[in-house]
């Protein structure tokens, strides 16, 4: 899990300008090639326009979503590249019982398949529905966009960013936010005035610019608070509750048992006061 001390501003970040996307899906192909992912058997038309495959899966880490809309009486397409958002404070990393997900210092949220026990909590936790499971396998693992960590580590750009002819810029997070703000300011009529990903889920390493309102395009409305804080506010109490409960119950039982002890001792003392009545009984008990 990332800590508050990590410097978010230098994280490698995607700026995806959907107004510039032509829907060529070069990114989808590049992703499949670099990650050596299998092709999927799909059927046209699985969504609006030429959207294909119907959803991300264990074989598809990124895909272009299509949206039909009308502008000045003309049919238009909007495109939206779906992929892992590489959150600054990822929910998947915080809920994983074995810490298989890590936010790397470079930016991508990476997955250590060797640790994963396959509990699928990451899939429940992810607000964007990104991690996918190998449902076809007897001993499945989780699959998701790697942010091309192996390339980024060596100073290259991710496969999809390299393949994209128009829409993707890649760089430091602060730099990308400044670029996005510049575009919003320079051409206000071209853009819907928001940067999706700047604050969503506490901030992500993917930033989107759109022409249309976000919800019309199918962007999920997500809390602005980092998700790990929701569970941590309860989990941080665990040691305290354990000690309070254990200590409280110990004290309680000590007092309650003490009463009984005192009663026994008093009975013993009073029995000594009248030895002739009680002694024969105890002897009988022994035999």
């Amino acid at each position, binding site marked *: 899990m990332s800590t508050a001390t990590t410097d978010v501003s230098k994280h490698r970040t995607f700026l995806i300008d959907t107004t510039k996307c032509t829907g060529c899906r070069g990114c989808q192909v590049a992703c499949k090639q670099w990650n050596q992912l299998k092709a999927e058997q799909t059927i046209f038309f699985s969504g609006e326009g030429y959207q294909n495959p119907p959803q991300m899966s264990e074989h598809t880490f990124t895909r272009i979503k299509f949206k039909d809309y009308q502008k000045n009486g003309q049919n238009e397409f909007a495109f939206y590249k779906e992929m892992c958002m590489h959150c600054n404070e990822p929910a998947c990393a915080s*809920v994983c*019982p074995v810490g298989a997900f890590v936010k790397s210092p470079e930016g991508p949220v990476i997955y250590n398949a060797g640790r994963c*026990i396959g*509990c699928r909590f990451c899939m*429940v936790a992810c607000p964007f529905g990104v991690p996918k499971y190998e449902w076809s396998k007897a*001993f499945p693992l989780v699959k998701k966009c790697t942010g091309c960590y192996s390339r980024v580590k060596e100073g290259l750009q991710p496969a999809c960013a390299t393949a994209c002819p128009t829409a993707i810029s890649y760089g430091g997070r602060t730099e990308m936010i400044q670029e996005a703000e510049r575009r919003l300011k320079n051409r206000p009529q071209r853009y819907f005035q928001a940067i999706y990903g700047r604050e969503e889920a506490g901030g992500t390493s993917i930033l989107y610019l759109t022409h249309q309102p976000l919800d019309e395009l199918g962007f999920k409305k997500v809390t602005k608070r980092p998700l790990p804080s929701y569970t941590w506010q*309860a*989990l941080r109490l665990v040691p305290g509750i354990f000690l309070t409960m254990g200590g409280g119950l*110990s004290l309680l*039982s000590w007092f309650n048992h003490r009463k009984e002890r005192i009663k026994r001792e008093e009975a013993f003392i009073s029995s000594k006061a009248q030895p002739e009545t009680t002694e024969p009984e105890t002897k009988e008990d022994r035999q």
Partner: protein
Amino acid sequence: MTAAARIIINEIKGYHRFLKFMIALVVLGALASLVRFVFGLGATTNLNDTYPWGLWISFDVVTAVPLAAGAFTLGAIVHCFHIKKLEPLVRPAIVTGFLGYSLVCVGLLLDLGQPQRGWHTMVYWNVHSPMFEVSMCVMAYTTVLFLEFLSPVCEKLGYHLPLRVLRWLEMPLVIAAASISTLHQSSLGTFFLIAVDKLHNLWYNPLLPLQFWMSAIFTGISIIILEATMVHRYLGQPDESELLEVLARILPWILGAYLLVKFAALAFLTHGPLFDRPGLLVLFVVEVAAGVILPMLMFMKAAHREDSRMQLRGASLVIFGLVLNRFNVSMFGMEQADQLIYYPSVTESLVTIGIIAGHILFFVLLAKYFPIFEHHPETVDYSIPDHCHAVDEHEQAKGAEA
């Protein structure tokens, strides 16, 4: 043949038929779980990327854990709050708890993609994960329950030395049980705090862990009432309804406190619409009205508390309410309005039915062969057998004198 003999023979035959039926269900469940390991989770369950958790998590883990809460609740009531007369109920509760937790582990391992790596949780710690917290606690608590369960086993086998050690450990184990249970019963609620914008507002609020813990306590008590009544009816054990009345007197207080917390959370701590999904609203109302308010009102009347039949009915209502609550939180409340609805496949259901049948079967067999019900602590012989005859001569001499 006399009529009496015929009745007895019929009873025995019925018992054997019941055992055979239960064994058949367990075998079916075991076969179904084998299918999961051969063909994978996708082929055998109705789970998918939208619903990564299904029946096996909702029932076998999230519901089964509070259903097995009787052991720690009663342990604390009897030993810490020192209501000693309830002691005869403790052992059956421990057996139920031990079986319950063992089967939770089985269910969890079936559900994991990589069950052979289950030990990873002990090595790669992530203290920020509620799942880590729960798995550590479940492992620790299953061990505690196993140790508590060893007492009747050692008594049966006549192992005196371990018995003495176990008796010495009794209080520490009871306190450990209550503290560990508090942690993981509530942390099961913490699981769903991460599902912001997924779990419906009727259930999503920051006090969910507290509610999970409180409901585990009243369910534990209700399970004890249910189990003691059933065991009296069908296994010919003594009628404990007088003791159960004490438990029935505790119940309305906890149910009332739970209700207060639930409505306070609903009123002050939820954000967003509550009444936008009529289906979920109905589920919520049924859960609260039938599972909490109705049994609370029932147990507030002394006449109902004393009546064995009403005890059973009230306890069953509480248990029904809890099961519905856990399914609401972990399954129904998580289903989004525009998505396909998840329902368990045949294989999934067979495995879960097998697990429940296994629990009942093992309980009946253990109750038959181990001193679980006829337990009177004062009669147990804790003395160490004197194999070396060190005291013998001395004692004999004394005996001769007498």
